[in-house]
């Protein structure tokens, strides 16, 4: 428990904030899990925020001229520099407060949003720099496991075996050939005060983590699993079911890293087989039993590793 959280009671189903900082009329696909994650994160943060988004689906669907879905100050920046711009905004706020041009006690949270491509690949150095400098901001990665905005190209966060347009399965390829990059671990390695993983299926958990991230003094990183029906070849109505299955199969474990210490926020004692998750998605349709066994073994090993981290540290 950090001292900044002392007054935060946590959200519950009964005291959800009424505000919607993100407006309807946006153009995300039917059943988009990424825009739902964005909505829930903003709902947790409230209206006193300055949001910065890297380009990607969430920028495209929220701002085709002459419309905007943003009811809070929002900066759309390039693909690679959400964390750098958020750094600048946070530094400017501090300078204005120092000069007496902005009320010292007024709380404004700075939040950067980027996709998995904008985070794990091209934006990684900007993110690392911002975490290293210790800016007081929240970085949220909305991970739909590929570059969806430009038509489903693989990213460092695309899971092993997944079909994308740049990791097509065929005679000589099983689809994505690398294992998913562990960005929360990279963020945690910077020694920042707060890192968490979340999914819209557990919306209270997501909202509480985002709020805690904002309350923390210094940088915080939240990695949100975001189902994408269009890119994954799934049904829109299945987005929440899949997000739940990802946790229940241990494919996407929910945890926090508070000042370096790992806490598993939802222990999965009786995991479902990964096959149950994989078989519902067209991007994994080509996987052979052998490949599925390989994925299961990897998921088991990764979860063991996480358990050890949570116990030992």
């Amino acid at each position, binding site marked *: 428990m950090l001292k900044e959280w002392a007054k935060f009671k946590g959200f519950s*189903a009964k005291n*959800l904030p009424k505000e*919607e900082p*993100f*407006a*309807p*009329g*946006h*153009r*995300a696909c*039917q*059943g*988009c*899990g990424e*825009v*739902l994650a964005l*909505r*829930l994160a903003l709902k947790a943060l409230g209206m006193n925020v300055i949001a910065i988004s890297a380009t990607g689906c969430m920028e495209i669907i*929220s*701002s085709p*001229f*002459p*419309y*905007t*879905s*943003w*009811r*809070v100050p929002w900066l759309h920046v390039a693909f690679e520099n959400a964390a750098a711009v958020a750094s600048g905004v946070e530094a400017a706020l501090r300078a204005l407060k120092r000069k007496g041009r902005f009320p010292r006690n007024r709380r404004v949270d700075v939040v950067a949003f980027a996709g998995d491509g904008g985070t794990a690949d091209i934006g990684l150095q900007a993110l690392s720099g911002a975490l290293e400098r210790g800016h007081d901001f929240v970085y949220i990665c909305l991970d739909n496991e590929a570059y969806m905005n430009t038509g489903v190209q693989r990213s460092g966060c695309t899971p092993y075996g997944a079909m994308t347009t740049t990791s097509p399965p065929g005679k000589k390829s099983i689809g994505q050939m690398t294992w998913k990059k562990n960005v929360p671990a990279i963020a945690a390695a910077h020694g920042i005060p707060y890192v968490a993983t979340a999914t*819209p299926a557990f*919306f209270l958990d997501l909202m509480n983590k985002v709020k805690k991230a904002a309350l923390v003094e210094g940088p915080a990183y939240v990695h949100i699993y975001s189902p994408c029906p269009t890119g994954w070849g799934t*049904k*829109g*109505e*299945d*987005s*929440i*079911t899949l997000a739940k299955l990802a946790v229940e199969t241990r494919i996407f474990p929910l945890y926090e890293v508070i000042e370096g210490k790992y806490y598993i926020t939802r222990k999965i004692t009786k995991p479902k087989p990964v096959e149950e998750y994989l078989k519902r998605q067209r991007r994994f349709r080509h996987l052979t039993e052998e490949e599925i066994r390989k994925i299961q073994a990897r998921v088991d090993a990764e979860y063991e590793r996480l358990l050890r981290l949570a116990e030992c540290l």
Partner: protein
Amino acid sequence: MPKGKDTALISWKEVPFGCYILEPGNSVGFKTGDWRSFRPVLDKEKCVKCGQCYIMCPDMTYTQDEEGYYIADLTYCKGCGICASVCPKGAITMVVEEV
């Protein structure tokens, strides 16, 4: 083919200086409801007013009426079916949208 000026959302003469958008959240003027091919229909008998449908809707369509029921605003509902799939009581059915 209609000419550009008949189909454009906004003519260049009306574009504000610097292409500013002067009203936050003005996408409420863009009605995504016409994307829909299925419509969520609520059975109030089964509903326990838990609000799962409200919080899980990616299009923020649900608001509570005076009696506490959550009602979808079909102006924006894209018909994804998430609300029906998360409802713990099976109170929402997706029915084909008639034109």
